[in-house]
């Protein structure tokens, strides 16, 4: 007797292989992904690399997401499997097995599944881990340490997490078995179902939520506001998707059904009524697929764009190889630092080119249309909500004409109260800038401007304004100091002087020298000489090459997490689709037999099936596509915060990801629908 149970458990798994193999595969894959992400996070070799610290912390974040997802996902699949096997358990029960015996069989099944998937998953994980480690090291351009790294801590974590999940699944199966009677168990799948009721209010709420989410996505023009609103928009769209899939679809079908002329047509008759039942059963699953697909697309397209555009971002953030910025009044210290940089560069054998120096003064304002005036006093627009502020705030970067002409090699002239303007994002809405007590007429709009690392000017609508001379800036500064009051110092309301320079030749190959010059300069200018009462340099010295590694580390880390989660969500999508097709197949079999009996031709039946299945399976993909379309400008604005201003690259990544995903989706559909037809035709 004792030997009976393991044997039964084993044959059960074998005879249910159509549903169990995909289940076990996805368990294994989840385990492997969880192991890899944990192992990479705790990999010492990796954290020693430049930017590796950042990567590790991303990995642990990714691990947490994977864990949460694994719990929900595997649990969902398991209860699906158990529900399908209810009649099998009913039969055992009738044949004389007690519930505790059934539970014992289930327990053994769970243990077998656990052992097999764990072994396979960890094996796969360790294999892929090494591969990914090599890939990451290569991206970070680090020397590759030899040896095979197995993370025991990650193995332990995997064992604990998945042990816990399997225990939970076993308890859930037990709950299913104990709560049902044998007779119910036997006929649990044959009960007639009521036609779903149309829930108009829910459908309307869903529509509103979706519209609100889209509205936020489209109208939020400021990146900072976009970040803040992103979460709200996502929640609104998710709620909207669920409600529209569940209530909205049925409401729509009801409307179609009420239209007799439309409903009683050969093409629509069977489809509408079966779709109604299909949506009743599948709406939640389809909404899940839709949201997962959207997530996959968002994550992969954004992280891919960031990853590919890392050099772009770097150049946006650091327009030149070296830059020095400080208060214009500390002129001497500034000159000294620039000289120090020159010397250091020379001693390292570097030639500085594209040297450039100019003064600027920046302030933020909100344009008030009714008064045609730019308000700079934060006290005056504090009645606006934070979001409105973010959305309307513009940054002015003011440069004296003298510096502009020198830097750009131009010979512009300006009269009294005349300015030149260059806008980075949005055109200036006016011809005359009324700000403080000045009224500045825009003489000309410029098409190009000197490099500037001022991020604020790039994120919000930035306007670069060339004024006649420093006296105008003095007036502005006075006005700004009054507006800010005692916060003036803290908010950086002062005239700044910038110096920028590139290095002749290839920066990559001269990286060591560039860094050496940077560190040398750094050490000299920031040195505190207490005897001379010298506090050292107060300004900022930056070097692009020194940031390359951390930028790459951050972005490749993000990309890896993106790919990981993408694979995970994709797997979930495929699996949900697979199980959906199987269940649908068994349910539709009887229905289509009847249709053939009452005079529907084989061809017609096949057509009806096809149109329904196509609708059901491509609805989530199309909806995901629409979501992505609306999210696109929104995401782009957020990406600008990460210094990615390459719209073409991001567009390309998004469209490419969508097409690749659609192809993958199509293949999955094609494979699973073959399965479905097989079941229905039998």
């Amino acid at each position, binding site marked *: 007797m004792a030997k009976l149970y393991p044997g039964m458990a084993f044959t059960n798994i074998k005879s249910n292989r159509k549903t169990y193999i995909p289940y076990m595969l996805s368990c294994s894959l989840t385990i492997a992904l969880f192991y890899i992400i944990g192992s990479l996070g705790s990999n010492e070799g990796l954290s020693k690399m430049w930017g590796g610290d950042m990567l590790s912390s991303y990995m642990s974040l990714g691990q947490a997401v994977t864990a949460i997802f694994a719990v929900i996902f595997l649990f969902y699949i398991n209860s699906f499997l158990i529900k399908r096997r209810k009649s099998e358990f009913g039969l055992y029960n009738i044949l004389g097995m007690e519930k505790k015996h059934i539970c014992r069989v289930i327990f053994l099944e769970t243990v077998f599944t656990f052992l097999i998937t764990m072994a396979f998953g960890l094996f796969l994980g360790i294999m892929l881990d090494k591969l990914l480690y090599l890939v990451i090291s290569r991206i970070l351009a680090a020397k590759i340490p030899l040896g095979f790294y197995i993370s025991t801590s990650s193995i332990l974590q995997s064992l604990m997490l998945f042990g816990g999940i399997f225990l939970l699944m076993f308890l859930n199966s037990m709950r299913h078995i104990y709560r049902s009677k044998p007779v119910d168990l036997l006929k649990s799948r044959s009960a007639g179902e009521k036609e779903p009721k149309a829930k108009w209010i829910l459908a309307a709420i869903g529509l509103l939520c979706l519209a609100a989410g889209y509205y936020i996505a489209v109208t939020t023009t400021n990146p900072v506001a976009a970040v803040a609103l992103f979460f709200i928009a996502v929640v609104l769209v998710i709620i909207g998707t669920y409600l529209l899939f569940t209530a909205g679809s049925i409401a729509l079908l009801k409307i179609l059904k009420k239209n007799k002329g439309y409903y009683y047509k050969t093409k629509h008759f069977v489809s509408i009524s079966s779709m109604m039942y299909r949506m009743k059963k599948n709406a939640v699953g389809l909404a899940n697929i839709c949201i997962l697909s959207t997530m996959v697309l968002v994550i992969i397209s954004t992280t891919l764009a960031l990853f590919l555009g890392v050099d772009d971002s770097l150049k946006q953030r650091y327009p030149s190889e070296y830059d020095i910025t400080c208060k214009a009044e500390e002129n001497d210290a500034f000159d000294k630092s620039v000289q120090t940089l020159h010397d250091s560069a020379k001693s390292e054998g570097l030639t500085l080119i594209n040297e450039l120096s100019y003064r600027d003064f920046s302030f933020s304002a909100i344009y008030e249309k009714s008064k045609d005036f730019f308000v700079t006093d934060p006290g005056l627009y504090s009645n606006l909500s934070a979001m409105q502020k973010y959305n309307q705030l513009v940054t002015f970067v003011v440069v004296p004409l003298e510096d502009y002409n020198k830097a750009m090699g131009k010979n512009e002239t300006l009269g009294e109260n005349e300015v030149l303007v260059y806008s980075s994002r949005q055109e200036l809405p006016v011809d005359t800038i009324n700000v403080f007590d000045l009224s500045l007429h825009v003489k000309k709009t410029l098409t190009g401007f000197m490099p500037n690392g001022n991020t604020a000017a790039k994120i919000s609508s930035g306007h670069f304004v060339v004024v006649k001379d420093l006296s105008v800036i003095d007036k502005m500064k006075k006005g700004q100091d009054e507006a800010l009051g005692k916060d003036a110092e803290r908010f950086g309301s002062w005239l700044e002087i910038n110096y920028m320079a590139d290095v002749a030749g290839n920066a990559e190959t001269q990286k060591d020298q560039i860094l050496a010059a940077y560190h040398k300069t750094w050490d000299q200018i920031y040195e505190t000489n207490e005897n001379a009462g010298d506090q050292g340099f107060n300004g900022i010295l930056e070097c692009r090459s020194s940031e390359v590694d951390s930028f790459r580390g951050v972005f490749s880390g993000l990309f890896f997490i993106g790919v990981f989660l993408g694979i995970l969500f994709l797997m979930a999508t495929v699996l949900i689709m697979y199980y959906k097709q199987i269940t649908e197949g068994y349910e539709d079999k009887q229905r289509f037999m009847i249709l053939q*009996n009452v005079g529907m*031709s*084989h061809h017609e039946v096949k057509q009806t099936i096809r149109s329904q299945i196509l609708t059901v399976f491509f609805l989530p993909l199309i909806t995901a596509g629409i979501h992505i379309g609306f999210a696109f400008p929104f995401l782009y604005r957020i990406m600008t915060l990460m210094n990615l201003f390459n719209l073409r690259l991001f567009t390309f990544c998004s469209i490419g990801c969508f097409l690749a995903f659609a192809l993958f989706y199509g293949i999955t559909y094609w494979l699973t629908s073959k399965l479905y037809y097989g079941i229905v035709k039998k």
Partner: protein
Amino acid sequence: MAILEVNNLEKIYTTRFGGSSVQALRNVSFSVEAGEYVAIMGESGSGKTTLLNILAALDRPTRGKVLLEGRDITSISEKELSAFRRNNLGFVFQDFNLLDTFNLMDNILLPLVLSGKKYHEMNQRLKPLASMLGISELLYKYPYEVSGGQKQRAAVARALITHPKLILADEPTGALDSRSSDDLLQMFGRINQSGQTILMVTHSVKAASHAGRVLFIADGSVFHQMYRGNSTNEEMFQKISDTLTSMATGGGLHG
């Protein structure tokens, strides 16, 4: 005039690799006149379901012909077959074959919708039929909301709504309680009196006793046939029982 003629029908089932073969029908011939009510009786395995499937054009015979108003239905192409069945034949099944996603009205209208009729016309046909079958009140109910007898009446309405040349009924009382069975059989009688030709396959003596003629099938061939003449249903019932008894005791010699 004979509406249906069955000539020398033969059906042989072979296993997939041609190993063994079973002869389900051998040399079956009979004809049905317009307006007749014929019952075909036989034990399980006698071949009556095979016969019905061939008459319904669901299956094709190995040899022989089936003529419906002179047209050989065994030679109709696969493409036309569904439309042919929809327009010429009406089916009543043992297990009703109603779609649970449709209410009774939509179930009844299904064949008309498939033929592409206008809603107005469908409604005109539906009304008198529903009131004749006593289901006018139930049209908006779903199959799981009504009794077996009511379901079968809806199925009969679905069979009749296309004005078929022939109604084929397969054990129509098989899943009904005795009261519902009686109702249904009386209804079949009335439908037949209005001129509808009915061919019913059954092994219920009671069901067969309502028919105008009974064909007995055993081991794949027509064994005997019996006309009602002027007998009442009760007398018919007695005669059928006697025949079946003699078939069970001595019939083995025959096939």
